């Protein structure tokens, strides 16, 4: 039998008199100096919302400019600054921290049954680092402008660019420290603070996903720091590292940069694997299909992700044999992603599926992520990549993974855990509508990019031959829908905080420790320290399926001692 044993009577038996983490302390100081992981998650959420708007403004400027083939809104430098702003902000100040610092921060201690993260003050410090780094970056982008693209390729960034490259580099280094601190914190928490009985293979997949992500953060980010320091050394202090006229090698930069940045795409997508696994299994009332395969797939991706950086350099002039090795490894890394897609799909099999908003986001995610992943097979094939690298095909590919995938999962996860975080319910009809709108808006915006990319439209172009205009117009039109789908939830979620119906402790009848405490949880997460003696999913008894009539089978199984 599967169950969590609450040490003393079932949680609802206790009168809800203890204040929640939201009301435990009051005043602005109690927020800005808090070491409560749940409050820090909300601080991150506020910061990320701001950065999402800034990065989004860049996207609006880009799509507006590309509506026509000519330059009509921005100057050439202005356009270059816009996509640099969009890219740097979206990558390092939105996507990399998104799910880990918000949902991860909030949920990891709850999921492993701990009172807080292992290093609560480090957690707060990493938020301040992040805010400070963000402020520096925005200053650099606004005051001086940076026009290197988020990739900072040398020797352009070291010798030829006129913008505030040094400052931007510094900001990203600081954000990197913040991300390392967060990663270390999660690793320590998952290793050391698991509740009694919470073995490794009883961790929910979300915790595994964050574990894999943290590993990659801690191991890859220092390389980014190193390479940006080298850029600063060359640009600021004339130390020749990349400049070929003084014996340097510009390709060295690309190797080091992608050694971080390829694993970084897994920093962005692994957490969403966790979110989707939790949602799919809950709303199909079926224990996740192939739990241990899912865990190994996460670890496989986290490790093999370090071995494929050279697939960004097929046309860079690296040796053909290096390209062959990287192509091979890139094909191999497609396998664990495929495993995940099939396992999610088969979790639906013989389930009792309902389609609340989180489930709609999750199903949309599976579709978009599948397309994103399959288009990656084209890129792993050298002859095709030679043609489409640095074109809109690549822009389409990474937006399908990072925006269609990771951002959809972020919205899905938010809508799933929102009642736990705030103790409020949001209007489900609006939420369903927003989820469906996001799917179609996304497809409309980014699918045309595959076609124009294969036709040869290069990326980072402000002006372009007329033959590409149809596709750009489609894409810009789709972006309007997509923007609506992103804004809508901000509206009804904010609304729900004030006027939403109160949420029960476990509104979705989900399993997992976080649902066994109150909504919102008390400051110390659990009134009584939890003990665990079964795996994370028990939506139906082993050897049976979920019953027709009870949506909450696990409730029946909670043993009353």
């Amino acid at each position: 039998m599967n169950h969590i044993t609450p040490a003393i009577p079932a949680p609802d038996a206790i009168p809800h008199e203890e204040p929640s983490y939201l009301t435990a302390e009051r005043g602005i100081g109690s927020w800005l100096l808090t070491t409560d992981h749940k409050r820090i998650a909300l601080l991150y959420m506020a910061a990320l919302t701001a950065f999402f708007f800034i990065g989004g403004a860049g996207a609006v400027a880009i799509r507006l400019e590309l509506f026509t083939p000519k330059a009509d809104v921005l100057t050439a430098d202005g356009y270059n600054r816009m996509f640099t702003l969009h890219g740097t902000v979206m990558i390092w100040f939105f996507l990399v921290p998104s799910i880990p610092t918000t949902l991860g921060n909030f949920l990891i201690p709850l999921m492993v049954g701990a009172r807080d993260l292992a290093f609560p003050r480090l957690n707060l410090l990493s938020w301040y680092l992040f805010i400070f780094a963000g402020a520096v970056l925005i200053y650099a982008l606004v005051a001086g402008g940076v026009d290197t693209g988020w990739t900072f390729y040398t020797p352009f960034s070291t010798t030829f660019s006129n913008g505030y490259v040094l400052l931007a580099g510094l900001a990203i280094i600081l954000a990197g420290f913040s991300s390392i601190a967060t990663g270390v914190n999660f690793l320590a928490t998952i290793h050391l603070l698991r509740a009694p009985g919470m073995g490794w293979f009883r961790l929910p997949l979300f915790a595994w996903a964050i574990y894999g992500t943290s590993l990659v953060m801690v191991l890859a980010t220092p390389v980014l720091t190193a390479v940006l320091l080298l850029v600063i050394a060359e640009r600021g202090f004339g130390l020749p590292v990349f400049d070929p006229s003084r014996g340097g090698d510009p390709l060295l930069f690309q190797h080091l940069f992608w050694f971080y940045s390829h694993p970084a795409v897994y920093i962005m997508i692994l957490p969403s694997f966790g979110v989707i696994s939790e949602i799919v299994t809950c709303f199909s009332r079926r224990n996740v299909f192939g739990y241990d395969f899912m865990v190994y797939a996460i670890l496989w991706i986290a490790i093999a992700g370090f071995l494929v950086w050279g697939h960004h350099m097929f046309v860079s002039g690296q040796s053909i044999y290096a390209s062959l090795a990287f192509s091979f490894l890139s094909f191999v890394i497609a396998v664990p992603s495929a495993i995940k897609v099939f396992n999610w799909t088969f979790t639906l099999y013989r389930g009792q599926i309902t389609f609340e908003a989180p489930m709609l986001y999750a199903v949309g995610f599976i579709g978009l992520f599948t397309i994103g992943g399959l288009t990656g097979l084209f890129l792993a094939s050298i002859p095709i990549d030679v043609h489409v690298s640095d074109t809109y095909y690549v822009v389409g590919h990474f937006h399908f993974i990072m925006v269609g995938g990771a951002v959809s999962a972020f919205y899905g996860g938010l809508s799933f855990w929102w009642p736990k975080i705030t103790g409020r319910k949001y209007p489900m009809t609006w939420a369903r509508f927003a989820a469906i709108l996001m799917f179609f808006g996304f497809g409309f915006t980014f699918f045309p990019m595959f076609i124009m990319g294969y036709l040869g439209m290069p990326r980072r172009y402000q002006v372009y031959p007329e033959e590409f205009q149809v596709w750009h117009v489609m894409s810009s039109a789709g972006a309007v829908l997509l923007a609506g789908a992103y804004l809508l939830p901000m509206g009804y979620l904010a609304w729900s905080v004030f006027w939403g119906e109160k949420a029960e402790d476990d509104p979705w009848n989900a399993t997992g420790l976080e649902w066994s405490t109150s909504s919102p949880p008390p400051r110390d997460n659990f009134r009584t320290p939890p003990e665990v003696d079964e795996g994370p999913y028990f939506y139906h008894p082993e050897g049976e399926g979920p019953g027709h009539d009870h949506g909450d089978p696990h409730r029946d199984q909670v043993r009353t001692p």
Partner: protein
Amino acid sequence: MIRFWPATASDVAAQVDQLTGVLLAICGAILLLVGCLLLGFSIRYRRGSSAKRGALPEIVSREVEVGWTAATLFLALFLFAWATGMELRANPPQPDAIEVHVLARQWMWKTRHANGAQEIDALHVPRGEQVRLLMTSQDVIHSFFVPAFRAKQDVLPGRLTELRFTATETGTYNLFCAEYCGTLHARMGGTVTVMEPEDFARWLAVQPRGDDLAREGAALFVSLGCAGCHGDRRGGSATVRAPKLEGVYNSPVPLQDGRVVTADEAYLRDSILQPRRDVVAGFPNVMPSFAGLVHEEEMQRLLAYLRSLKDAP
């Protein structure tokens, strides 16, 4: 008219399209499978439907998992083998390829034919003959991209990269810079014109040619002081012992550390910019580095001169 497929104007383009087509079919099938399963399960197993539930059949929980892991792995390996085979076979170098030098700089392409004819933001090539571009950049990294040929190669400062293609269809095609290179990156483009070989020969003959590349190189060879050591063919004075350069191009050179290398463009270039790296066996390493003294265009002339030096009979 809306185009869905780019023009196909090189032998490689046709192969790449074939690979793309097969991948499209395979990926389309996978997408269809996933889509049908997702939709099918969603409908059939919606809450409260009368479809059979209960435990998963034994075969589904293990064999299927192992099965699709193995299937995707084999599919991945097959695709890798095929794509790689194609890449390795594409465009084997041909001895009689037409050589064109390409010099990229912020925001312009300069191309130079063997006879000295120069073009800016344009390139004319004959149909059906292999063209070999020897490319380098004067400033930042650029990328030479002709979608109709499915050909792309980054162009780096301080290094020579090569791009080979054989055009199969006459016409005029877009040339783009595909690597972001600063302010006017989007305007750093031009055209590639493919002509029938006879037309090309006629076109080439009437081009005003800059001074013949190799002849300019010879002048540089003297004015930069190379001749002082290496001697020139007209019997200049050679006070320092330095290797003869006649016939060195594309011939094997024994080095001090025991390796034997072929003196291709990259080697000659390194010999001039970083002479300490590969020292010729039997000679003192006294040759000074010319890095910073010889700029890219001069380098191309020097190389053309060195290549033109035939072994004296």
